[in-house]
């Protein structure tokens, strides 16, 4: 930064603001604006917009109030969107579900300086049930600051981490990360410092990548973070560049997140204008870091490191065998280090607050917090930040408020298509990188989907298999062919047409797919099946033979075209051209293909 954002004077090398009283006053002015002054905020992240926040915002802005109306990100209470927070004379009223119609009533109370009871949910976040068990260090700005006002971020201790980092050398930064015990938040929980250590030792041109390809259905914490507090991610990313010597950065995110992409691009150009990215960052000669946003084009498998790199190169996202590891040979042959969005945000915090601060949160070997996404049949769905080691029960009942519509709990699905379903008896399991895998699930990116008594577990398995089958890249046989056959078996079972031996077959196949697939997608694709089989095997048994399989009969309408015969997968149909064909019921597997292909609808289902 050439000049200080707060006093306009020239800055010292390595600083984002002065320590002068003038600057300090200006900073506390900003903080007062954020936390004390009269002000209205409206959450306009994707979930808020989906609930109609834009209209509420328009109404507020057009009603000529005497205080500023700011657009902010998402505090995580997606279930209550649109969220409007009103502060008058030092008092804050947080309103939930403040849709266009309700906002008019709220406006009346604003003018009176009173509280509108109808959709009032609390005065402080900490008082709201949803937040009581949370530990907010990552998301402390979410829903409070204007995401694209860098002064807000800096006033709330932003870039303190980077200022600290530039005083250290590469080894010292990595040592600090090591001491904090930070593990990658993308899924497997690999220690971040180990990745960085190997990567920092490679020389020449190299790439740092933010993996924001949040493809798991049911996970949107990366989106929330990007949309609500993008500078924290960029600060962590810049610290990583300082620690590892990489001068090129790529933020890979999804095209399905248009708002997040826009926010990131704007945030990057703000950083570039203020010397927080680009050449000679903070005035330090040779501290260069260029960051660009790349959007994926819609392929879940690109969350896998090697296939992400292929996608960045513009190729088909086929994973590659390792070695060579990305740290040796990654994007365009250059060493590459990939971390999750959340991991980089944590890095900013570790350097800001010190490693000891992190050590104190969480349980052994699992330090710090994790953003999780609660969704499904839970009362309060949204993004929560929890200390690692919290129990699932606390997550579902204390944070999530239990189940919707008074239904009975059945399971939580953790980790999306690579994860598993965990039944009630394990609800006291702690949420961390070591305990969850023991149950056959994974932390994944942190999606927690609550299922109730109405949900069929066979259907859940079928749902995830449908997902992995359509997202399999097709490169390796076990995943390409295996997931498809697993899906077909589960599909038959869920329709009540499964046969007894097929359950055994499913288990055997699942094991091989897990054991021999090339990448993480294939290796973990059987998890939803294996965990539901393990914990809800009864549901499979019950679904078996529930319905007698359809019997297909060829009627006299048959014209003898032979289409059914050619399409029968088990060659159960015989007949000569132009004469009526016949199905051998012994051989028939009741797949119904003949019925589908018959051009004259000559095949009846009995």
């Amino acid at each position: 930064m050439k000049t200080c954002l707060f006093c306009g004077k020239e800055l010292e090398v390595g600083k984002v603001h002065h320590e002068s009283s003038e600057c300090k006053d200006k900073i506390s002015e900003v903080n007062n604006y954020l936390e004390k002054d009269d002000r209205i905020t409206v959450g306009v992240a994707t979930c808020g917009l989906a609930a109609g926040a834009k209209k509420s915002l328009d109404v507020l802005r057009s009603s000529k109030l005497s205080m500023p109306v700011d657009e902010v990100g998402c505090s995580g209470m997606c279930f209550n969107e649109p969220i409007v927070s009103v502060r008058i004379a030092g008092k804050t009223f947080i309103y939930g579900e403040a849709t266009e119609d309700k906002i008019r009533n709220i406006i009346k109370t604003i003018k009176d300086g009173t509280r509108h009871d109808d959709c009032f949910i609390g005065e402080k976040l900490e008082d709201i049930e949803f937040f009581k068990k949370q530990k907010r260090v990552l998301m402390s700005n979410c829903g409070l600051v204007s995401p694209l006002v860098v002064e807000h971020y800096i006033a709330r201790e932003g870039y303190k981490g980077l200022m600290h980092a530039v005083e250290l050398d590469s080894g010292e930064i990595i040592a600090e990360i090591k001491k904090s015990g930070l593990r990658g938040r993308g899924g497997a929980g690999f220690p971040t410092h180990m990745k960085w250590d190997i990567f920092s030792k490679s020389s020449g041109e190299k790439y740092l990548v933010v993996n924001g390809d949040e493809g798991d259905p049911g996970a949107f914490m990366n989106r929330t973070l990007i949309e609500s507090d993008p500078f924290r991610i960029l600060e962590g990313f810049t610290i990583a560049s300082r620690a590892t010597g990489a001068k090129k950065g790529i933020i890979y995110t999804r095209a399905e997140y248009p708002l997040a992409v826009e926010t990131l691009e704007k945030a990057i150009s703000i950083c570039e204008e203020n010397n927080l990215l680009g050449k000679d960052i903070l005035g330090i000669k040779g501290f260069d870091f260029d960051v660009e946003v790349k959007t994926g084009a819609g392929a879940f498998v690109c969350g896998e490191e090697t296939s992400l790199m292929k996608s960045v190169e513009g190729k088909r996202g086929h994973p590659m065998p390792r070695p060579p590891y990305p740290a040796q040979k990654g994007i365009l042959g250059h060493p590459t280090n990939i971390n999750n969005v959340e991991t980089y945000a944590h890095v900013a915090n570790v350097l800001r607050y010190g490693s000891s601060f992190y050590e104190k949160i969480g349980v052994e070997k699992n330090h710090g917090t994790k953003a999780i996404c609660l969704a499904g049949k839970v009362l309060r769905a949204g993004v929560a930040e929890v200390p690692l080691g919290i129990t699932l029960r606390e997550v579902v009942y204390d944070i999530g408020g239990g189940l919707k519509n008074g239904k009975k709990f059945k399971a939580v699905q953790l980790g999306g298509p690579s994860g598993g379903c965990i039944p009630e008896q394990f609800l006291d399991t702690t949420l961390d990188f070591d305990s969850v895998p023991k149950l056959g699930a994974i932390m994944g990116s942190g999606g927690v989907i609550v299922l109730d008594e109405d949900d069929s577990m066979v259907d859940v398995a079928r749902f995830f298999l449908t997902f992995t089958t359509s997202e399999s890249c097709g490169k390796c046989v076990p995943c390409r062919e295996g997931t498809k056959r697993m899906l077909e078996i589960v599909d038959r079972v869920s329709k009540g047409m499964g046969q007894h031996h097929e359950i055994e077959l499913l288990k055997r196949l699942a094991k091989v797919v897990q054991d021999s697939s090339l990448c993480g997608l294939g290796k973990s694709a059987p998890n939803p099946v294996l965990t539901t089989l393990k914990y809800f095997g009864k549901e499979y048994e019950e679904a078996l033979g529930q319905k007698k399989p359809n019997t297909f009969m060829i009627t006299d309408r048959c014209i003898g075209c032979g289409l059914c015969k050619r399409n029968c997968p088990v060659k159960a149909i015989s007949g000569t051209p132009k004469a009526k064909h016949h199905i051998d019921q012994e051989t028939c597997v009741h797949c119904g293909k003949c019925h589908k292909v018959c051009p004259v609808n000559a095949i009846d289902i009995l």
Partner: protein
Amino acid sequence: MFKKKRCKVKFRKEKPTVKLVINGMEILAYQDETIFQAAERNCINIPHFCYHPRLKVVGACRMCVVEVEGRRNLEASCSTPVKEGQVVYTHSERVIEARRTILELLLANHDLNCPTCKKNLNCKLQEYSTDLMIDEISYVGEMRHNPKDHSSVSIQRDPDKCILCGRCVRVCGDVQTVHAIGQVNRGFYMNVEPPFKHELSESSCINCGQCVVNCPVGALTEHSSIHEFIKELVDKSKTKKHFVVQVAPSIRATLGELFGMPAGTPVTGKLVTALREVGFDMVFDTDLAADITIVEEATEFVKRLKNNDNLPMITTCCPAWIKFGEQFFIDELEHMSSCRSPQAILASLVRTYYAEKKGVDADDIVLVDIMPCTAKKYEIQRPEFAGDVDYVLTTVELAKLIKQFNIDFEDLPDSEFDNPLGISSGAGAIFGRSGGVMEAALRTAADFLTGKDLKKVEYEKVRGLETLKEAEINIAGHKIKVAAVQTLGEARKIMDDIRAGKSPYHFIEIMACYGGCIGGGGQPPLKDDDVLVERAGALNKQDVKMKYRKSHKNPAVLEIYKEYVGEFGGEKAHKLLHTKYSKKDYI
């Protein structure tokens, strides 16, 4: 029970140093080897589809998975490096279960019409399924279905037989840089096809057939002309046609393999006898045409060298390379020799010189060419040569023809090629391997330039399996820099240099296939590169044994020129033996 395999290609001077245990047996591996390579060198064969030593390792088929102690999942041996102290099981129960399941999964999505498949009994999927005794397929369900593509005159595609190992795509893209076919769609619906749903004939395919020899199953096969040929042959007594066949130089070194003989067994005599048994009236040798090619090419080269005209000059025996040039280097075609390929030269002579001499109507001749190459099927359809050749059969097709005629190949007596197109020199013989055309041309060009009968006939520097072989030769005050190039990927680099005006060469040989014609797209499948060494060795041996080692000393050649063609490089020679090239469009 484990004999150390003698590998010519893989042999190294240094000692292996990494100690690991495979199946309880301690073995030594080289630092840069994978488990697969170390096992293979120690006679432990691991089944595989997608791995090929000369192609990029992709680890796609997962057939080569092995159990490595301390690793949670099975590892693909093709992509896992060896490590000191590693304990590996290549055939444990867990591994076999995985391989069996993979085979079952592949079979469940495969049209199982084996008896009508061209690769029947020569198919890896079939082989492994038999070995692992897959007697039942547990999985039923949707099958991938894509239309067959018979549009190309050289290669047929049947996607329903494809197991998506990607070898064809890698050889076409990475090795040949042609990119005619690629993987499209993803997941279960992935397929290998030309871009934007076009047919192969409209694509940039140069018909080299490397995809065919690399396909472990029957998804890519040569476009066979056997049936049409047999039909015509059967009618011989009625039509009174005169059946003539020519045999390319490399066939005699490879055909034996298809009858169970070791690689590199020369079968020239039996081959000629077998063709007579099939019913050919005349069996001619393309080697002779190769000699004529050399005489013409050397004449052209000497002229260009003296006038410093369009150098480097590039050989044009390989029809795949010609189409490659016509598609991608249309601005550099003047570098190509105008000389026809040996196949086209012999065909031209059969229809003119031979027909006249024999007193048969040229139209009454049925000419069949036995070629190592699928691109030759394309070459005979080029408008410049239209009608000269009736059928091209590849080595693989010839073996099938011989079997169809119930000829006991191994026990056949030897016989000689027919005259007047049957006598050849050693120079013609080596045409079948990479570097051979260059070596043969140098023998003649050197004599032409010096006006002497030089003793030196062997140019070792242009031999071998490197994709680019260079040599610098001093002849009569000329410093001639030559290169022998194999694979079109290498050719592309050379051509890019020429385009950029920085090519150091005067004379370049380009062959599309690795190894030259002995590794052609119509040849028997290659087990490993040692086979190529053996095949080349057979041709070199034939060369050494020959009475004449230089093309322009071949008496048959001299007689043809004297009787019919006239001068080397003369007007009639140009009419009969040279051609022109033109731009070829592709999608």
